């Protein structure tokens, strides 16, 4: 864990969600007055079905447009504050905001190495006339890529990811290669073998220690209880509780929302 003094010196990026509303065909799915994410290194976002967790993450990434409200990223790459609710999705990564995917997502024809090179490459390299940049791109990033490959024991990178678990892991690695300052993980461990899950968790901790803010949505609440410094509990579209994992776990509202009133 990070010591108090260390934490004070690190300026963590934070996201503030204000008056954000999203409804689908008349039904309000997310309605948040004021929510600050990123106060603590690792925060969890939990809640019963239909609470709006995934929708909130997509709203932050702007792959779901907001009906109203603003979302601001403080301490973005470069230190400034950016109102991200007006920006298209592809501007999030350059600002240091990255999200992994809940469902398996991969590029059909790209090898593992390609996927990694795609993540580390920037628009500067990707012009139709910049046709001799591949060696430089590779040389610049080979060390970082090797680190991950060795850590996860990926084997030969010049092949297309096979199993669903491998694709899920590759999705997370792509996110990490983007060097996120604010990382959102949507069910990062679903479908991963146990030993890989542990490695991913270890890496998330390390990243958080180094100053990245992490927000996790996860159905396996054991992961949340073990990993998070703070937990946000969502129900019916808004965040109804914040607190340490212990506080949340013991809170009667949480039990009620999950199980129903009689079990409090």
């Amino acid at each position, binding site marked *: 864990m990070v010591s108090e003094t260390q934490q004070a010196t690190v300026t963590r990026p934070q996201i503030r969600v204000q008056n954000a509303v999203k409804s689908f065909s*008349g039904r309000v799915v997310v309605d948040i007055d004021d929510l600050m994410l990123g106060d603590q290194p690792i925060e969890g976002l939990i809640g*019963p079905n239909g609470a709006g967790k995934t929708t909130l993450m997509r709203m932050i990434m702007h792959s779901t447009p907001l009906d109203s409200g603003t979302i601001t990223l403080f301490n973005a790459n470069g230190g400034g504050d950016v109102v991200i609710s007006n920006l298209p999705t592809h501007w999030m990564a350059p600002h240091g905001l990255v999200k992994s995917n809940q469902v398996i997502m991969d590029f059909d024809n790209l090898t593992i190495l390609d996927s990694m090179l795609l993540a580390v490459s920037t628009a500067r390299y990707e012009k139709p006339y910049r046709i001799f940049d591949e060696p430089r791109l590779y040389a610049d990033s080979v060390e970082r890529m090797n680190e991950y490959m060795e850590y996860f024991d990926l084997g030969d990178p010049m092949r297309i990811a096979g199993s669903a678990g491998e694709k899920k892991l590759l999705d997370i690695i792509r996110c990490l290669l983007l060097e996120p300052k604010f990382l959102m993980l949507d069910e990062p461990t*679903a479908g991963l073998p146990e030993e890989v899950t542990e490695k991913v968790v270890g890496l998330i901790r390390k990243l958080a220690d180094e100053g990245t803010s992490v927000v996790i949505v996860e*159905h396996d609440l054991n992961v949340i209880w073990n990993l998070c410094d703070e937990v946000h509990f969502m129900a*019916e579209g808004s965040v109804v509780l914040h607190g340490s994992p212990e506080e949340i776990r013991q809170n009667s509202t949480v039990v009620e929302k999950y199980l129903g009133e009689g079990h409090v």
Partner: protein
Amino acid sequence: MSETNGTPMLEASGLRSGYHGVNVLKDISFEVGNEVFTVLGANGAGKTTLLATLARLIPSTAGSISFLGDDVTRIPAFETAARGMGYVPQERGVFPDLTVMENLTVGGMIGERSREERIEEVVELFPDLGNLGNQVAGTLSGGESRMVACGRALMQDPALLLLDEPTAGLSPLYVDMFFEKITEIHQDKGVGIILAEQNATKALEVADRVMVLSLGEAFAVMDAANLTTDQLKEGYRI
């Protein structure tokens, strides 16, 4: 573990299924008789996947399903529907482009009894539907569209009704009403019910037997009365 009364209506054994090569359900076996059988579990536990697999809308990767004595593991969804399985999916339970009355009529395309008679019965069960006949289902409120979805499935004269979180996101008034209706459907019409729910309290009130799903595995299958809060919390990992 308790037994069903008499021969089971539906029997699943060693069931596995999921999406994109990830098995959400990991080896599930259970029997359902003419009863209210409740499937509890937190989000991500696999309740929706289980019901869609039983309705034959998601292919199972292993295991078998038998319904009313026949093996239905490989037959198409419209065939299981014709044999008496009614299915109300979680959110998209209505045809959004059709009117309420048309939604009900689609349900009434199978079965022998006269359609008018069945529509009358459904409207008797959900009186609100009587006034909504010509409204396009896509414009209904959440509670109304859930009633239409239920009504559509009941129009099929099902022997077994699969209900996937019929009360999720509804106001408490609707929730109470729906659970009353579930009891009514089971007791008055003799329809067996598989009810997937997250809200344990309400669901246990109407359930005969219960199965708790925990990350794709059956955690407990037992009489609803015997389930303890601690068992539930463990299943939900709270």
